[in-house]
């Protein structure tokens, strides 16, 4: 069965259905994280004192490193898509592989951050700050894991589509990329909000 408008633009929207779908999904994700950011503002405005991240043991150098890692992974992701558009499948594999490795790197740094907190007996129940810190970074971390799963599939067995339907596969990489850039975008706001302010 052929899926309609997976490559050609839908005459109603002017874009392939997959692209419209991923943007609608991202809009719902904005609302999900928006609700938590709104909760953060409410908690912070309502608190008598609100700690600076660095004063309660959050590591700014590690978080800065993770920011750089995610930004780099966004570049490698878009380069993976660009490589397909230039018909360079080996380069695509290299760049998408790098994206996956950088995502794992982000999670490893996050693991060290989390275990350092647990080692000092700091949990979500410790304070309002840490409740929202673990909720926001935990949800973001789950999104990173989701991205790793999707990108790994597209790097491995999912890449078979390239041989039979290259345009369709390039579109899939573009949609996976849009999701991955969104994950990066969320972290760009989480980083100053939780660590620097």
């Amino acid at each position, binding site marked *: 069965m052929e899926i309609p408008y997976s490559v050609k633009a839908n005459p109603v*929207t002017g*874009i392939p259905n997959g692209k419209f779908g991923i943007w609608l999904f991202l809009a719902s994700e904005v*609302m999900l994280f928006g609700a938590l950011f709104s909760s953060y503002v409410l908690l912070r405005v309502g608190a008598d004192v609100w700690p600076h991240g660095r004063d309660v043991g959050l590591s700014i150098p590690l978080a800065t490193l993770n920011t750089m890692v995610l930004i780099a992974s*966004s*570049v490698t992701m878009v380069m993976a898509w660009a490589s397909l558009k230039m018909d360079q499948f080996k380069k695509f594999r290299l760049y998408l592989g790098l994206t996956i490795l950088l995502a794992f790197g982000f999670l490893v740094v996050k693991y060290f951050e989390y275990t350092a907190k647990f080692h000092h007996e700091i949990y979500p129940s410790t304070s309002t700050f840490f409740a929202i810190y673990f909720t926001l970074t935990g949800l973001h971390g789950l999104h990173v894991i989701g991205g790793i799963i999707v990108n790994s599939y597209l790097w491995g067995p999912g890449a078979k589509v390239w041989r039979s339907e290259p345009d369709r596969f390039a579109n899939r990489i573009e949609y996976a*990329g*849009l999701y991955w850039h969104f994950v990066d*975008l969320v972290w760009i706001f989480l980083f*100053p909000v939780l660590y*620097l302010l």
Partner: protein
Amino acid sequence: MSADSAEEIRKHVKVYITVFAALAALTIITVGISYLHLPAFWAITFALLVATVKGSLVACYFMHLISERAIIFWVLIVCLIFFAHLLLLPVATSSHY
């Protein structure tokens, strides 16, 4: 993004590298400024301003919003209206006190 030729994509690649350098520089600047211990209002304003610029760079160039179709913008405009409502909820709640 609309259908692109390989030559156009090569031009895009240069833009991606430039955006990456800008994002890295802005990250270092925002971290550096945070160590100056500015008054809370200015620290929050500056950090969120830099984050907004960085987010816009990612959305415009990596997510290709700068050359995207109108329907995507309509989806995002509706989304941002609701998002703004969400962020204003704490203000509305705190006005009761």
